[in-house]
């Protein structure tokens, strides 16, 4: 009906243009158009947080944002947080704490945790648990994830 729209964004620091239909969510665009499949689809209705990305400095669930709404936006996905082959301290902490099993929720948890630590470098366990309330894990449970974020916070403060 309305064809495709040309959208200009910056994804993981790189200028990225794409064409999308208005009905395509940012999640669909990232995975199916741009080819960044690190962002996962869980519930597709905002409940599970698996598709969490950072949009203009704030975490959002990409399934509830339209691709066309991303015009001019800066987006960070899981592909954009390691640097030069070195894992981000949060990624490293998730590995060391075995804070994942199937891994579908992991990119969302890591991006939500990054947004927390960028704002609050030394959160309490309670603050971490409350902040991650919109990210669901159905296999590992949350203790290892929370410990990983606490470890990452400590590591990042040493640097």
């Amino acid at each position, binding site marked *: 009906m309305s064809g495709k729209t040309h959208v200009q964004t910056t994804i993981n620091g790189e200028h990225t243009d794409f064409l999308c239909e208005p009905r395509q969510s940012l999640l669909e665009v990232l995975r199916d158009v741009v080819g960044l499949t690190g962002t996962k689809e869980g519930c597709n209705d905002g409940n599970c947080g698996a598709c969490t990305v950072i949009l203009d400095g704030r975490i959002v669930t990409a399934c*509830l944002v*339209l691709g066309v709404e991303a015009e001019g936006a800066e987006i960070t996905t899981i592909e954009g947080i390691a640097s030069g082959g070195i894992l981000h301290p949060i990624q490293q902490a998730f590995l060391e704490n075995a804070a994942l099993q199937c891994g579908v929720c992991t990119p969302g948890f890591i991006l939500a945790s990054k947004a927390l630590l960028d704002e609050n470098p030394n959160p309490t366990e309670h603050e971490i648990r409350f902040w991650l309330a*919109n990210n669901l894990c159905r296999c590992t449970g949350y203790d290892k994830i929370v410990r990983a974020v606490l470890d990452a916070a400590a590591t990042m403060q040493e640097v």
Partner: protein
Amino acid sequence: MKDFEYANPTSVKAAVDLLSDSWGNTEVLAGGTDLITSMKQGLTEPTRLVSLKNIKKLQGISKKKGTLQIGAATTLSALAANGDVQQHFPALVTAIEGIGSAQMINVGTAGGDLFQRPRCWYFRQGYGLLGVYEGKSLIPEGDNRYHAIFGNAGPAYYVNPSSLAPALIALGASVSVVGDGGEREIKVADLHTTPSNTGQREFSIEPNEIAVAITIPMNGLKNATYEIRQRRGLDWPLVTASVAFKAGSIVSGTNVVLGHVAPVPWRSSAASAALNGKFVNAAAAAAAGEAATRGAAPLSKNGYKVQQVKVAVKRAILAANA
């Protein structure tokens, strides 16, 4: 999701001109946390979406003539982080924090919260706002554990889902809406209506009107919200109470408003009257809580909400006074 035209106007007037005068042909896109889900589920299938994202006038919070003006497209996280809101309107901050999701409050907006559609699972499963199947509502004999205990004589049994409305009503706030005929002011208390048939929506605005700002008087009322929830995560509360009153040696001007108990935010004049003229203490707060349950008529599975109303009102009053 069905295809639609995406319109991205930069002025309120242009946005109004793009809207249809009947519900559902066009939809207004603010944060989208409710609308996008509703479109995926086929609950609404608009031919055009009118985004408010690029209308600068709808953003931001400012003081004006003894009031706080909140642009309708201001995000809930920006609202909760605002210094004036934190200082004067803790009832709003509690309501926003209660949403329990950084992701939702980062995109969800103040105006969008007021106009989100009910969470009634019959509605969400496609049986319409009144939950009707074969000419009869499924709700009175169905699973009504989260439904109304007030204002539920029919045909509506769902509860109003807004997080902000009870607090805004308690604080005496109003909403400016713009349509074809210009701008008008509606008290938040008059914003929600109970439909009598499935073609209607539950708002007192027209399909081609847009909320542009919320105005809250800054008149020093003590205020608080208390929510009763199953869990501290992303979910709607079971019952909430927002209260505002003028503190002195004795209380006056009390407003007690309940959320999630009726098709509209429920103003409890009995609870307000019970607190006026009293010193605030646990006994007075409990008496107001008791009064708030007057007239409750639970359905088959939601009698538990009556006790929750007592507790929520009592704790909100004590929190406001703390």
